[in-house]
């Protein structure tokens, strides 16, 4: 028993070293921009860069749009599958897992060939159309996570009773989904949203191949041309990821209570 505990501590220690060394090293490196002293100069340089502000704002906007599209797509579908078409569940689950099987670079390659400027649906002919296609592409990437989060949320509520009660009171489908189901799975939807945000905010492949002015390609560009700013960007990106995951953890604490609320 004693030996196994020592072994466990050693394993944990080695793991912690592997994961903390790069973070410490990156942070230390990001502080070294001014010769001889530690300073936050690299962060000031990054945050003061107008390209940083523009691309970051663009990616935040795209992420919010992606979350909205994902919710609009997933919540009614998962609800309907649970209520009326349970036999379709394996099919829908398989489709939502496809983005894990088909690499993002392949999906976006297909978009470029199918929705180019000379195609019947020329998304890529205009700037706005490209933005829309990027949001759509991100929504497919987020699909596995969003669907699973919402479906887990729906499992904790009595979909059938809620629906029948709402129907008796004269509610239409839009009211039922928007004002009954969505508020009840809000915690699940929000944790899906945080995960989507974490995935989308620094995404490189799709944004770069669609020539979108997004944060991922900007970071890549800085990495190729600067020394200390990339380290600062890595720390900023890590903090954002951490904030998103922390948000999910905090939400998880509220989840059971709100789902089992008697009314």
């Amino acid at each position: 028993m004693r030996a196994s505990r020592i072994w466990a501590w050693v394993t944990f220690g080695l793991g912690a070293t592997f994961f903390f060394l790069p973070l410490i090293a990156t942070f230390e490196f990001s502080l070294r921009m001014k010769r001889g002293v530690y300073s936050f100069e690299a962060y000031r340089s990054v945050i003061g860069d107008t390209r940083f502000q523009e691309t970051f704002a663009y990616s935040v906007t795209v992420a919010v749009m992606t979350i909205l599209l994902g919710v609009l797509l997933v919540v009614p579908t998962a609800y309907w599958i649970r209520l009326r078409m349970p036999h379709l569940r394996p099919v829908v689950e398989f489709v939502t897992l496809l983005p894990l099987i088909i690499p993002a670079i392949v999906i976006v390659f297909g978009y470029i060939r199918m929705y180019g400027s000379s195609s019947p649906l020329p998304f890529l002919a205009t700037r706005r159309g490209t933005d829309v296609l990027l949001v759509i592409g991100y929504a497919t990437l987020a699909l596995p996570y969003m669907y699973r989060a919402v479906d887990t949320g729906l499992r904790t509520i009595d979909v059938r009773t809620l629906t029948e009660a709402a129907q008796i009171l004269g509610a239409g489908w839009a009211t039922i989904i928007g004002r009954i189901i969505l508020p009840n799975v809000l915690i699940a939807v929000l944790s899906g949203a945080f995960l989507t945000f974490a995935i989308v905010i620094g995404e490189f492949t799709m944004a770069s191949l669609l020539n979108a002015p997004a944060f991922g390609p900007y970071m890549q560009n800085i990495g190729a041309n600067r020394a200390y700013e990339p380290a600062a960007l890595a720390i900023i990106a890590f903090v954002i990821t951490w904030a998103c995951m922390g948000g999910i953890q905090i939400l998880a604490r509220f989840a059971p209570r709100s789902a089992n609320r008697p009314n």
Partner: protein
Amino acid sequence: MTQTSITAALEAAQEAPPAERRGVRLPLHWLGVAPFFIFALMFLILPTLYLIVGAFQNNEGEFTFANIAELMQPSIRSAYWISIRISLASALLGGLAGLAIAVAIVRGGLPEWIRAATLTFSGVASNFAGVPLAFAFIATLGRLGLVTVLLNTWFGINIYALGFNLLSFWGLTLTYLFFQIPLMVLIIVPAIDGLKKEWAEAAATLGATQAQYWRMVALPVLWPSFLGTVLLLFANAFGAIATAYALTGSQLNIVPILLYAQIRGDVLHNPHLGYALAFGMIFITGVANIFYIWFRTRSERWLK
């Protein structure tokens, strides 16, 4: 009069054969899932099929295997080979390290907060991939990275003189481990939790040592979950491009980077060969995922 007509209408409604009623209601049912399936068809399935069909066509649109055969040319074959080796190495090493860490935090007798902290951190680290991850490893193990410099000044070990290079097979594998290990931890911890206490007690009653219990009971039960997750990690690494691209530019000839260059500028001088390249990627990640699902159903026999 009205009374009879209502009764008649009710009777008619009741007498209507069920098949006919379903025939009227079915399309409305489908309306609820139509947006989802249209979306999936337009933006997931058709674009992928477009590439797959293109992989089996020549420039005139006739059916051919020539593109697939051309994947065997040395430069493309070596790209697939490096990609497979990096994905396999990072999946196996990440899988073993993840399993060891998971066993340590679940069954090692460590304080409870360590388990919670490790799981939270794993959630973060498994999503910390792409361009920033490459930056972090350049700051750590690059030529001027902290660890490189400290090893040199403290111990006089110059890892670059010893042949290490971050922009190489092992450099990329080590970088991938940063998201592979946490992913393994996240997936395998529930499986280890599923090992029943009774099995350990039964083994102990029969006189088994701790090592025998792990070798003859726990590991065989965990084996399908472990192998399945390794395959998932493999597919995960195989499709990844951002980390490799930010780390090495186009120095390392792996499939996703080759495909990226092909999409950008038709470097293979044959669009259909590009489709074949994409098809090859889907084929490999698809096979890995099919086996992952197969292993997962096998593991569910014992766990839960």
